[in-house]
């Protein structure tokens, strides 16, 4: 018997608001421990939360981007449990009335398009961070009360690959919507995977386990693959799957049980009396919608219809928000969408792929790339030279102007100088001149080559061609 895997994801994304979700503390990453804190996010007695309006705007934006229904009436609830990183001993979250419900996302995986349902998106606060030292465990509350959204999917994925593609697509959407920086190395995007298996063709679900806190796509893939194998081998041995919460151990590439259903927390959710219910008017929701940044689907359409890009180019550019943003920045200084798309998708991508780098790690800015393309357009350098300059830029981070002048690459477009060289070439090659004049058109190729040689390739071949013809036809 063959088994299929059933996967649902809970994705936590940190919102990129300036301040925390219930107080005015900064959300900047990497500050000295316990410096971005105040009585509110430290859970000091008597301190009260005040909901960050920007965070509400952001979650609504995320909800709209993921085709959700936005609730006109929502509220914040308390989730009660003790842990040293949770200073109030409750997390302010949402229980039964989240801001967003019933969305979906289309993804490409396993060579097909799949629709993944989104059950809900709710707003909550992050906890602090435990730091284990030889002297004991310390707590850093800088992260306490950072704004998080939790995006809960339906159990609609049927392979680890689909789960990864879905997670990547969510990341891309959140980046396009400008609600989260999704920096996974900073923990701004985390996944919990709910995994069960069932015989192919079965309509009912198997017992699921939840793997907590996966912090990279690679981990997500590995953990699901591992858990699938584990569950299948248990079933094949006739053992029962227990409903459990699990943790992926990256160093041992294994799964560790955290707790089983029997000792699951009773979180005693109840409405937070310190916060009023949130009433979102249709006008507010429409306002957020009208100010939405362009989403990938929309951009793709625009690229094809207005920029005349190929379907493929448009797809590549919009599947990666950083690449897309870079491309559009290039267009600001170099308004030739097709040529720019070609350079970004082919030349730049080749360099990035070779060195396994991300767009955001490029050592030069989009305006440098635009400058390079302008130099090619104006004929200052040839396209072939341009590729070399781009490679240098990639290596050194220097501006194209710097590289061109340092290497003396600039094409000679000074006609007087070119004419002088052309005269010399004509004088030194009477045989070819005679051939041309006798009707051997091809002879001009040799003469152009001689001029190019004399200028060390810095002449514009087209100009040289024209000058020579004029002189020969005189």
């Amino acid at each position: 018997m063959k088994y299929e895997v059933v996967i649902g994801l809970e994705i936590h994304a940190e919102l990129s608001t300036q301040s925390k979700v219930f107080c005015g503390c900064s959300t900047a990453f990497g500050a000295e421990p316990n410096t971005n804190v105040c009585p509110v996010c430290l859970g000091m007695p008597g301190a009260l939360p005040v909901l960050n309006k920007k965070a509400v705007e952001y979650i609504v934006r995320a909800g709209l981007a993921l085709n959700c229904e936005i609730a006109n009436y929502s509220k914040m609830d308390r989730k009660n449990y003790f842990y040293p990183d949770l200073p109030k001993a409750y997390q302010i979250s949402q229980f039964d009335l989240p801001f967003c419900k019933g969305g979906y996302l289309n993804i490409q995986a396993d060579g097909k398009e799949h629709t993944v349902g989104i059950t809900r998106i709710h707003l909550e606060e992050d906890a602090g961070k435990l730091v284990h030292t030889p002297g004991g465990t310390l707590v850093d509350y800088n992260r306490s009360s950072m704004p998080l959204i939790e995006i809960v999917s339906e159990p609609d994925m049927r392979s680890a690959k689909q789960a990864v593609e879905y997670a990547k697509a969510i990341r891309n959407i959140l980046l396009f919507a400008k609600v989260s920086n999704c920096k996974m190395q900073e923990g701004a995007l985390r996944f919990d995977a709910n995994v069960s298996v069932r015989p192919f063709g079965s309509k009912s679900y198997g017992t699921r386990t939840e793997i907590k806190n996966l912090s990279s796509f690679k981990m997500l893939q590995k953990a699901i693959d591992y858990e699938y194998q584990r569950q299948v081998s248990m079933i094949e041995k006739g053992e029962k799957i227990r409903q459990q919460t699990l943790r992926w151990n990256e160093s041992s590439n294994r799964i560790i049980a955290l707790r089983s259903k029997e000792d699951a927390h009773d979180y005693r959710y109840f409405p937070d009396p310190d916060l009023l219910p949130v009433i979102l008017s249709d006008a507010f929701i429409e306002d957020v919608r009208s100010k939405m940044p362009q989403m990938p689907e929309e951009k793709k359409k625009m690229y094809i219809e207005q920029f005349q890009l190929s379907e493929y180019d448009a797809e590549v550019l919009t599947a990666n928000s950083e690449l897309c943003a870079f491309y559009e920045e290039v267009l600001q200084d170099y308004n030739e969408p097709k040529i720019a798309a070609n350079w970004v998708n082919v030349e730049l991508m080749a360099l990035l792929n070779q060195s396994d780098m991300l767009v955001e790690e490029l050592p030069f800015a989009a305006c440098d790339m635009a400058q390079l393309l302008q130099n090619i357009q104006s004929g200052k350098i040839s396209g072939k030279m341009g590729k070399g300059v781009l490679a240098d830029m990639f290596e050194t981070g220097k501006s194209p102007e710097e590289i061109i002048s340092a290497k003396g690459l600039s094409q000679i477009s000074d006609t007087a100088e070119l004419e002088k060289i052309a005269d010399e070439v004509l004088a030194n090659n009477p045989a070819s001149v005679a051939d041309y004049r006798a009707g051997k058109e091809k002879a001009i190729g040799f003469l152009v080559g001689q001029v190019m040689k004399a200028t060390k390739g810095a002449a514009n071949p087209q100009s040289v061609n024209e000058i020579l013809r004029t002189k020969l036809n005189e």
Partner: protein
Amino acid sequence: MRLCDMPLYQLSAMLDEKSISAKEIAQDVMKRIGEANATVGGYITILDEKEIMESAQKTDERIAAGARRSKIDGIPYALKDNMCTKGIRTTCSSKLLENFVPVYNATVYEHLINAGGVLVGKADMDEFAMGSANENSALSFTRNPWDTKKVAGGSSGGSSATVASGQAVFSLGSDTGGSIRLPASFCGITGFKPTYSAVPRYGVIAFASSLDQVGPLTKDIRDTAIVLDEIVKYDDKDSTSAKIATNYAQNLNNNIKGMRIGVDASLVEATDEDTKAAVLTAIEKFKEMGCKIVDLSFNHNEIMVAAYYIISSAEASSNLARFDGMTYGVRREGENVIDTYVNTRSWGFGPEVKRRIMMGTFVLSSGYYDAYYKKALQDRTLIKHNFDAAFELCDCVLSPTTIFTAYDAGKKLEHPTDAYMSDVFTPMANIAGLPAASIPCGFAKNGMPIGLQLIGNSYQEQTLLNMAYAYQQETDFHLQRPKMTGEGEKDEV
């Protein structure tokens, strides 16, 4: 009458006339603390005399410069010890917080600092404001100034007893289910719980967030109006804070002719004989002043106390979870983090607080939530509707504040719920979020004060103040002062 026994409005006028100085008032209050503190108690922390006198000195300088800030500039007052005071320890009368010194001020305290009030000390209370006799204090004691063998009432017992005994001119207390009104009634002073959301809660250590409200305890309703003008202010740090325009002291008037007073006779009937007689006499007095009595019959009297204890305990179980010894307060180390939680909380909380935490945890647990917490919220809605309907018929609701007058300290109640059932008149105002006052309306045969409760519609503080003002113009119960033992020669004013 000594300065320390005089009402705020009178002292304020004397300061304006420059017939006395703020330092003289402060000195007399300090002297009274010396006389009364051993028997009445009422404070957890008393500020250094030097600090108090410096604060009074600053008022005197402002008065000399013609720049007195408000009517409470230069007036000595006490704060219930659940209001955070930067640099001054704030304990909630709990062992867990006996070393807790806040790094921030409660917004109400900020307002009193800005108004120029002279803070004398932090008043005693039932631990985390849970109790109605002030006998659950883990750090101090408070007794009734009229008879120090008797309780002062709670949970703002310290706030009440210090004012009644002249150890403060006024105080702030907090009221979750009657914690201002009940001790005010027991100690023969005026207590006022404003509409929920009127006074900012930021920095006030929460008991039950949806019920808690800070208010003044004073010797005269005119004092109440003056203090409310300083503390009823919008606060952007409290999401539940309302924007209300106030000018209570200026708008105070005693023309209450034609006001309709709602009375549920069954509530009056439920009290002891002395209380019943005093309340009936007060009703006659209001009739004489031209008020109409409207008969009410609430159908929520039985369920109200249960709903109150379920909601308040549920919120408390969550609000008090933060006292785990991790980031502040006292920590009792254990083998591991769970042990540390258990040790700290088992050692730190008193029995009543533990009882409420357990009760609250139970009613929120899965499987019990619907039967208890959800049901209590439905009762809450019903009680609100009942009051909405009542206020169609009347302008305020009158009842006794308590079933009986102050009783002997240490009197063991058979069962904790017997104590709970004694709070039958006050929690309804918290459940419905309404403003309510307790004013003195007589004395029992044993000499203990009796209180009258007036409940108004939301944000109708002025109506209540005017009703109480008119009543105090016609009666002298609020002018009586308990005899302080150890009192020296009488000062003439």
